[in-house]
């Protein structure tokens, strides 16, 4: 009985440590699927000194293999669709997807275009939507932190 309890508490400790590690170090991969650059520069601005996403342990990594969080901007264009899926598959589990910007969340104002494959959530599961055109860096920071906290805890 006591051993069992001890084991359980050990296990829960482990889980807590692991989830803490995950929450504290979300590495971000940013994918532009046809955005207007507005969102992209706001994401980079979120890493710049004023907002400094790195204080939450975030890093902007260049290879999906290293990433935990996928930031998607832009309505998904036809050419980027296969690449979006491929990048999503390349990211090792556990992962979260954050759709940044109105484009990625709902597709407007490009909705109805021949070349646009609709918003991101039609293609891959999205965990958090950050609305705005473009959203402020604060909102992006909040979006990333919320996504990580809700999924990895």
């Amino acid at each position, binding site marked *: 009985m006591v051993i069992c309890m001890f084991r359980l508490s050990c296990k829960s400790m482990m889980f807590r440590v*692991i989830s803490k*590690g995950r929450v504290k*170090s979300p590495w971000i991969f940013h994918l532009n699927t046809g955005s207007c650059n507005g969102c992209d520069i706001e994401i980079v601005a979120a890493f710049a*000194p004023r907002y400094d996403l*790195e204080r939450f*342990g975030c890093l902007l990594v260049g*290879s999906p293999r*290293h990433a*935990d969080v996928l930031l998607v901007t832009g309505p998904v264009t036809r050419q980027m669709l296969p690449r979006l899926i491929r990048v999503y598959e390349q990211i090792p589990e556990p992962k979260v997807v954050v759709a940044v910007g109105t484009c990625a969340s709902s597709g407007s104002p490009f909705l109805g275009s021949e070349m646009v494959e609709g918003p991101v959530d039609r293609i891959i599961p999205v965990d958090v939507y950050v609305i705005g055109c473009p959203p402020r860096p604060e909102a992006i920071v909040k979006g990333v932190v919320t996504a990580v906290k809700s999924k990895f805890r």
Partner: protein
Amino acid sequence: MDAAVAFITSFPLVLVVSLLFEGIDRKIHARMQKRIGPPIIQPFYDLIKLFNKERIIPVTASTRVFEIMPMIAAAASILGASILLSNTLSGLGMIGDLILVMYLLAMSSIALMVGGLASGNPYAAIGFSRKMSMMIAYEIPMFIAIISVAFGPPAVLTIDRVIKFQISTRLPLAVSSLSMASAAATLLLCIPAAASVVPFDIPEAKTEIIYGFLIEYGGPYLALAKIAKAVSNFTLTLLVSVVFLYIPSLLGEEALINLGISLSICLAVSLLIMFATITVPRTIFARLKIGQAFKFYWMLPLALSILSIILSVIGL
């Protein structure tokens, strides 16, 4: 302390200290850029996370090599660091001399290179060839500088003898003679390249070849690679601080009795060295090109190291 105990305890110590060093480096780097920066224990979080991620092995990779190489890299660098640290810790003659430490360090980076190459990614191939030429550029001066210790006043290569020599002369090696000073300078100049930070992070340039040979590594493998890198950076700085700048030697025989104090002084010195040779260059320089870096290493450090060996043969 007993030598064997020292050796065993130094394993976890090496891990913790080198990760802390990395955290401090990142924090200072951020501070110098007007940012707040991640917490100092950030590398631990990163590792915990990475170890619990999915393992992905690319289809183009030759699986065995790809899997095993990060482990070899991490093991080699941890071994190198703990040989160094346990010698400082115990003050007793143990296994290992300077050549062995250097060899283990080189092995750890070669293992990473080979593992990256095995992933079959073209960027990794470029990273491999770049790292190869960088290693030729910095390893040669580094080895010559270490060898000049054997020719120089201490005339030994085992670490504890070097430490004892410094204690007996009551002077750090680097200030004791001209040849050793230039050897120490060579090593200091080689650290940024060996740690592959800007301006010499050519093999792992993020914006050019996306981390080079680390590109396909993810999850636990990446964690091992990170450990290997952090520990080998730490080893390099500790090497300089123990072999060339053993400040506790000013205390004389005291240094061997109060090992705790001398160890903490050594660590503080190596932290300073890390700040000067890793944090500052990566904050204030732009990345060089491979040709420029090669030229730099074969001009200054190589000349310095050859000077040091000549001087030490003459006996200056």
